[in-house]
């Protein structure tokens, strides 16, 4: 019998599948948030595994800022068709058009904050009582204490005082009508685990995660992609660099990193090495601003 060792990716996968099935069993209308980013791609794959050979028994929701990388939308549509699930698009543009929110203007305008409104509208309109998100606890200090089942107030905000203790693998999903929770099935995964899983499973992710040549501008220590949505400042000179993205969000404020890593295996090597050698002001600045972006994204999104 080979029960001796359970590789960490298998243990994480089994835990995540357990969580996804538990929510599907105990909630009436779950929905899985999907951004096209690597974490939500892994989460969607886990959902696919959880119900195989049946279809995923809930729809997938994309909170669409309208500022997308084309590669990400292509990927989304292909994947959704492959899985045969319903896609719900919660559109920030629609919220703007309906006058629900006012768009920021100027070169540094971002739609990240507006995502919250689109998301909450989407959840209400769909009557969803549980929303899966791809958040991980290793993302930042404050996240470290977030539960797997995360109870939200009526504004969708995390209420640290009103969280339920989670013991063993017993999750308490009781809720009142109208209440909804966020569920984070990959809470215990780290960035490294996600990359290792992508590589082990041969999961396709949008091409912008890997090295490609692209027109970028340098702004606030970040490398921003030149897209129709980005307003250039007077002194900004686009240049072409070999870059990849570490997250994919609103194209106007997602920073790229210079990198020749063209495969998951090469990214893993970079992620591992950056923990040791990421020294010096330039890289550190990069890192801080990147973390800052993540935060803003999180405020808006999850």
């Amino acid at each position, binding site marked *: *019998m080979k029960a001796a060792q359970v590789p*960490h990716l298998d243990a994480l996968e*089994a835990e995540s599948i357990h969580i996804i099935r538990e929510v599907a069993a105990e909630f009436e209308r779950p929905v899985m948030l999907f951004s096209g980013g690597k974490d939500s791609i892994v989460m969607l794959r886990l959902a696919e595994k959880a119900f195989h050979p049946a279809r995923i028994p809930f729809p997938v929701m994309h909170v669409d800022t309208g500022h997308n990388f084309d590669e990400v939308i292509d990927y989304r549509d292909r994947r959704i068709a492959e899985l045969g699930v319903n896609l719900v698009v919660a559109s920030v543009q629609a919220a703007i058009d309906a006058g629900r929110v006012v768009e920021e203007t100027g070169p540094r305008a971002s739609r990240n904050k507006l995502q919250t409104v689109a998301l909450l509208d989407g959840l209400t309109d769909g009557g969803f009582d549980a929303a899966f998100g791809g958040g991980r606890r290793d993302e930042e200090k404050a996240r470290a*204490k977030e539960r797997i089942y995360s109870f939200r107030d009526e504004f969708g905000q995390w209420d640290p005082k009103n969280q339920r203790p989670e013991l063993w693998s017993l999750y308490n999903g009781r809720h009142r009508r109208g209440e909804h929770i966020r569920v984070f099935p990959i809470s215990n995964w780290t960035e490294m685990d996600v990359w290792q899983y992508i590589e082990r499973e041969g999961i396709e992710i949008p091409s912008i995660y890997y090295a490609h040549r692209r027109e970028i501008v340098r702004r606030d220590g970040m490398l921003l992609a030149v897209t129709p949505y980005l307003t250039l400042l007077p002194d900004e000179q686009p240049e072409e660099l070999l870059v990849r993205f570490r997250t994919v969000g609103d194209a106007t404020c997602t920073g790229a990193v210079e990198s020749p890593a063209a495969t998951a295996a090469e990214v893993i090597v970079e992620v591992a090495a950056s923990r040791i050698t990421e020294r010096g002001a330039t890289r550190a600045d990069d890192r801080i601003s990147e973390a800052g972006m993540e935060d803003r994204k999180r405020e808006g999104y999850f």
Partner: protein
Amino acid sequence: MEMLRFATAGSVDDGKSTLIGRLLLDSKQIFEDQLEAVERTSREKGFDYTNLALLTDGLRSEREQGITIDVAYRYFATPQRKFIIADTPGHVQYTRNMVTGASTADLALVLIDARKGIVEQSRRHAVIASLLRVPHLVLCVNKMDLVDWDQRVFDDICAEFTEFAAKLDIPDLTFIPISALNGDNVTTHSEHMPWFGGPTLLYHLEHLYIASDRNLIDPRFPVQYVIRPMSDRHHDYRGYAGQVAGGVFRPGDEVMVLPSGLTTTIASIDTFDGPLDEAFPPMSVTIRLADDLDVSRGDMICRTRNAPTATQDLDAMVCWFHERPMAERVTYGIKHTTNSARCQVRDLQYRLDINTLSRDDSAGQLHMNDIGRVQLRVTAPLFVDEYRRNQTTGSFILIDESTHETVGAGMIIGTGD
């Protein structure tokens, strides 16, 4: 690479944050910019050293602000293992956090300040680790630099703790003298304590044998979800999805389904990645049965000759989490494996004083952070094992019926009278 989950506990200022910061730093989980920020704050606050505790400082600031303090989860990996730390704040009233952290832990790490020796809190932590049956306990005697690296201090603490631990059920106990501040015996051997022949803390965490801690003897499969594709390709497919809670299942095994008691054989064990020859904890799989039985969520697949007890009476140790105390004759919701029901508190036999291990028979209620022995009557049979035999089929949570909060956690000792 295997995964090891451990819970850390210590009284305030024993050096827990420093130790965790040290482990994260030495395993290269800390980025330069984070470290620089900590060095800067250390200087600003007038420390003449880098205060690693600042790395995990989320909890401390909360403590100062008096907000709810909770278990924080942290992650690091070495080439040997991936680690998940359940960092449980060590304040007196936070028994519930330690219980929560320990419920999923392979190992409990209890910190002691070498100058203070074993205090009430240390005993409390050890008792909780043993109640929750955490298989491995490591006692780190910290701040050895402040007692001149004196072997006698360490030996005395070990002796005293060993004597106390004899009253508990702790299968594996290890002592390590450390200085979290300087890193002695954390990831590298200490030059200051040549008298210590044991492993460093990190080496111990990396090499400890944990594969046998799971129950691979008693086959238990709580049915979580019924998979019925109803598609053209899988027209008649009916699979029972769940996470194996004990033992090993193989295709061809004769199995029994509870509560019906009907028997059949396993037709196949399916996963997205193909069928399996065997399934064991903690795998999430889908089992197909040879016969068309009526099986649904909450049912249990086991063996004819090795089945859990189906019972409505539970005898359990319960840890109480809520400000509103647990009282006799009150009804709560109960969740056990994939089963939900209601239960009534029939009798609170005693409250355990976890400092002295004495039993208070006169307690009429369990208050927040109390642990007591309780008799429960459940509205429908649950399929249970003793917690000591199986942590998944031996544990449950109690839920307030009106607020839906999780108010207690229980470990089954037996099946009542």
